[in-house]
């Protein structure tokens, strides 16, 4: 029986190869290494820690079921991330709000005190949020985001640009407000 210590020292590619061959212990080690980034991604997208963890579990369950279809062990990270985006998009489609009105956030002094990056992300529409998170948090290119989400490349570029601009406005407003309160 392979010890957990030995698996912990392995690089990711051999671990993935072992998991693809049916080694559940190796898959468990992969989950340990990747769970934080996938859960953080889901938290940024869903703005709900419990929902994010449930969606992250679905990602790893789907990954376990379809690991045999992975073409290369070195592509595991990007493949897992694409799976996570698919799980999020499936959740969104199944739980689409009845109206498509964009959320409007007016910056009141009380609100701006509480605002932070996650709250600022919550203030932008879901598709825009997804593109901004994938671009800035996951470091994906526009074409990679387009391939992962199914959105046209032009739409992705527009979402990332406008989303980043809105985030800057919201976060600058927060900093100014905090600064004014400290000065006053």
């Amino acid at each position, binding site marked *: 029986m392979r010890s957990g210590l030995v698996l912990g020292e392995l690089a990711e590619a051999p671990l993935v190869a072992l998991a693809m061959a049916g080694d559940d212990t190796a898959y468990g080690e992969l989950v*340990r290494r990747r769970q*934080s980034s996938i859960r953080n991604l889901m938290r940024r997208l869903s703005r709900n820690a419990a929902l994010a963890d449930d969606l992250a579990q679905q990602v790893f369950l789907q990954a*376990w079921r379809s690991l045999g279809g992975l073409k290369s062990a070195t592509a595991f990270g990007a493949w897992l991330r694409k799976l996570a985006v698919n799980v999020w998009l499936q959740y969104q489609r199944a739980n689409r709000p009845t109206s498509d009105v964009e959320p409007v956030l007016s910056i009141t002094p009380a609100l701006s005190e509480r605002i932070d990056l996650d709250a600022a992300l919550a203030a932008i529409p879901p598709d825009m949020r997804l593109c901004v998170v994938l*671009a*800035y*948090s996951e470091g994906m*290119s526009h074409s990679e985001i387009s391939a992962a989400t199914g959105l046209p490349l032009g739409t992705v570029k527009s979402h990332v640009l406008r989303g980043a601009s809105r985030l*800057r406005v919201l976060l600058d407003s927060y900093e100014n407000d905090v600064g004014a309160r400290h000065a006053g």
Partner: protein
Amino acid sequence: MPDEDNPDLRRLFAAADVTLPAEPFVSELAQRLGRQQRLRFYRRLCVATVLLIAAALATPIVSLLSLELARAATEQLADLLVSPWAVAASPLIGVLVLLRMRARYR
């Protein structure tokens, strides 16, 4: 490779990343995986059982039917099979089959 050139925003995102504890997430996932594996096993067991029962029930019927068809075919074709023409034709048919097999596997 990212396209964006906004280092402030990228720094903000990097700073907001927290390392989340593996437990109890990994334990809960292990339990769900175990349940899925058991469900998959029971599903396969059910399918195999149904197929076995269907085969066991169908075997007498299929056997009887096969015997009946073989008997009927023998009765109908007996005259032809034991005729001089059949005796002459059967080695020719065998040779033809052998020649086709040689041509296919060359």
